[in-house]
């Protein structure tokens, strides 16, 4: 994964990619590197949005709780109105 310098707790690249795909689909994370590398603040902001929606502790980090919710079967409609 790009060394984004994010204070990510994620264990491995798969988690990171899963999160990126999830946030892009459901929280309008901008596509491509801009959403992650250059604007790592955007990535953290989107993680916080998702954690707030699911009533998780809002840390901006990709912790276990957050990853667990991202892996659950769900509806494909975004969580933020587009």
């Amino acid at each position: 994964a790009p060394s984004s310098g994010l204070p990510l707790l994620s264990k491995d690249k798969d988690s990171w990619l899963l999160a990126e795909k999830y946030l892009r689909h459901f929280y309008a994370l901008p596509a491509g590197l801009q959403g992650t590398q250059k604007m790592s603040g955007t990535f953290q902001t989107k993680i916080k949005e998702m954690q707030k929606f699911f009533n998780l502790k809002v840390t901006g980090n990709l912790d276990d709780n957050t990853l667990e919710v991202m892996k659950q079967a769900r509806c494909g409609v975004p969580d933020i109105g587009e």
Partner: protein
Amino acid sequence: YNHFPRHLKWNNNTVTFRILNYTPDLAKSDVDRAVRNALNVWADVTPLIFKKLHQGNADIMISFGSKEHGDYNPFDGPNGLLAHAYPPGQGIGGDTHFDEDEHWSKDSSAYNLYIVAAHELGHALGMSHSTDPGALMYPVYSYATGYPLSEDDIEGIQALYGPNPNPRKVKPKPDAPNKCDPMLSFDAVTELRGETIIFKDRFYWRIHPQMPEPEQTLIKSTWPSIPNKVDAAYENPEKDLVIIFSGIRMWALNGYNLVDGYPKYIHKLGLPKTIRKIDAAVYIKDTGKTLLFTDEDYWSYDEATSTMDSGYPRSIEDDFPGMDDEVDAAAYHYGYLYFFHEHVQYEYSYTSRKVIRIQRTNSILNC
């Protein structure tokens, strides 16, 4: 609840729908019924009327497809994305797509089509996702029986279309309990392989030492076969079993799996038939005894011999001075008994036989 931006909705209360194709997982009639029942859920609480078309363009076009299926919004194979729908509007507006790579069922054996359809058709009518885990419009899939709409869902759809002029009596599901409600009480508490599980209504919170926040989930999502209402629960770590009590029956869980041969009647433990419910249960590791609380009394069950100790029941008030005379839930950690009654938590020292601290029940939930 949430609506889509600009509160998109159908301007005509008669909305047409058409099923374009069918999944091979179910009989055609099962799919027809699931869709019709899912639409009726919303029709019951609004003035909306749903008319089925068999050809031509309908407001809501329903279809099954996998991966890229024609709307540049591909599905992802089994699990993950189950389905999606578009808000009310012309063309693709209202259309509802189900991922054919999922396995669809009419029970809890796979993804229940009726439940997913009721959720997706909520989108097709203008509902966006709810943050309430007890709402049908919550984005994560969970299996449940009974009426699928919560009060949150009903408020949301009626904010768009108003109530049904001839309301049919419906009993909405209560919204999810709020962990920081100061008056919160628990139904049951147990350990489970190092985690603490707290049951309340149809939900349970899972507290893991490494997880900063308790995680709230529907009971039926994890254990479809145990009832929505748990009275008491305890873990016997020696046997790696959790016993769940509801009414006069009990279930044994090995981790997250139900043990064969259960449910059994609680009277198998040696309780008299007059006992119809256990309020709380807790295993005391230091003595090998399980304490079972019923109304103002409690019983002692010897796990090694699987027999009820003689000389019971005894009064809670006599044997646990300083405690309330009834218990909702109980837990045991490092020589301390934690009794929960209504919104109060008592920390009782088993050795010095007295209450040493009183807190709010939800202090255990980081509130």
